[in-house]
């Protein structure tokens, strides 16, 4: 019951995280910042806007991105197979990429291309993460991971590697080249408007839920540790966002692949010897 409620409320939870993040970011920049409910105001406003579209392929693929991402979040909450969820998440990214390519807009194309390239960086680490959980629990099922005790101390290096990809998925500095606002005006989302942009906006909120749910997986069955991890990662990501510039996509790949893969490999080799 509570799972169904969580699934339905997932975008709202994401909205609160995003709203809190905007406040935290503003405070870090010595500003007052918007109210906590700002993401919801934005959503209501977008619902009320006139609908502009380029072509129907573009719009439908954008909506499918949102729907698939919601399914992914639902699977995480229900406790499905982690490896499978990662591939389903790939499917949702693919929908977004196809949407980006389905219009003749250069910024949309560059954004989609960067999304594709960034996939090289984060996909292997996510898969390695799933494998590490498999080695610890003997199963890819998230429900099994949640029942066991915290994995954080067995896979600390993988946790660090995972931290590297959190900014990529949340589109935060220094790894936000995919959505670089000052270069390509949001990348893939540039051609969406009105209620159709809202789907992308909510997909972003769902992405927050997805990533922070993965962070909380490291805590296993301990709720307090999960909360601590969530808060720690939340502040860490925002602190990093506010103290770095956006680096280029090729630097992103190099840094994340070299550091992340090394950490993940070392950790898994360590696990197989224990």
């Amino acid at each position, binding site marked *: 019951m509570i799972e169904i409620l969580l699934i339905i409320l997932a975008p709202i939870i994401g909205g609160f995280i995003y709203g809190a993040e*905007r406040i935290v970011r*503003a405070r870090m*920049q*010595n*500003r*007052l*910042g*918007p*109210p906590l409910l*700002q993401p919801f*105001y*934005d959503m*209501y*406003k977008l*619902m*009320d*806007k*006139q*609908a*502009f579209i380029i072509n129907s392929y573009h719009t439908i693929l954008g909506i499918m991105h949102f729907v698939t991402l919601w399914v992914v979040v639902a699977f995480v909450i229900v406790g499905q197979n982690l490896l499978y969820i990662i591939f389903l998440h790939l499917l949702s990214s693919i929908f977004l990429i196809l949407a980006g390519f389905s219009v003749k807009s250069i910024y949309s194309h560059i954004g989609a291309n960067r999304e594709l390239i960034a996939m090289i960086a984060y996909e292997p680490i996510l898969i390695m993460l799933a494998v590490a959980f498999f080695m610890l629990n003997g199963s890819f099922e998230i429900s099994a991971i949640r029942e066991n005790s915290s994995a954080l101390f067995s896979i600390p290096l993988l946790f660090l590697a995972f931290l590297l990809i959190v900014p990529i998925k949340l589109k935060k500095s220094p790894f936000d080249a995919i959505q670089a*606002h000052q270069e390509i*005006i*949001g990348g893939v989302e*540039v*051609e*969406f*408007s*009105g209620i159709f*942009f809202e789907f992308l906006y909510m997909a972003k909120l769902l992405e927050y839920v997805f990533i922070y749910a993965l962070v909380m997986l490291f805590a296993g069955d301990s709720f307090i540790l999960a909360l601590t991890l969530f808060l720690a990662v939340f502040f860490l990501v925002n602190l990093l966002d506010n103290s770095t510039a956006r680096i280029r996509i090729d630097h992103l790949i190099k840094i994340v692949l070299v550091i992340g893969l090394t950490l993940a490999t070392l950790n898994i080799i360590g696990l197989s010897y224990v």
Partner: protein
Amino acid sequence: MFNFKKYRKKSPWILHYNAGSCNGCDIEILAALSPKYDLERFGVINTGNPKQSDIFLVTGPVTFRSRERLVELYTQMPEPKVVIALGSCTCTGGVFRDMYNVEDGIDRYIPVDVYIPGCAASPELIIDGIVKALDILEQKTKKMEKPLKLFQDASTKDGIINKRDCALKVGEKDEEN
């Protein structure tokens, strides 16, 4: 049913276009986004993308070459939208009035809702203007507002374009077709 209208004024997203201004007002917009004035507390985001904006912030007296872009950007913005003319020269042409390459204010081309005077308009004035625009935004309908006509018959008189004669409405032409 849920009344969405009242949320419009809580999340105004801005599109800024410089139609030939002297930069004075543009840097004041940046200043208004900065910590001292912090426009974001009203929910303002500088999107830079017409398709996701509600408020069109125009500076400058509209030069000959920027007017097409001005109208193009205006038509790409979804309704409801509000246009703010920022700075004296945007409202009337200001010091540039009657210069040969200047079109004397944006209200000849697109319907303006809020005029903010000042050379350069200070951030306080900008905030004031945007807050005023929010009230107007709440009242707006979702009906398309057509830009006013501009550069169709750019007949030239003595090498200088006679602008006032060829200002018709774009909408009329559309209805004929």
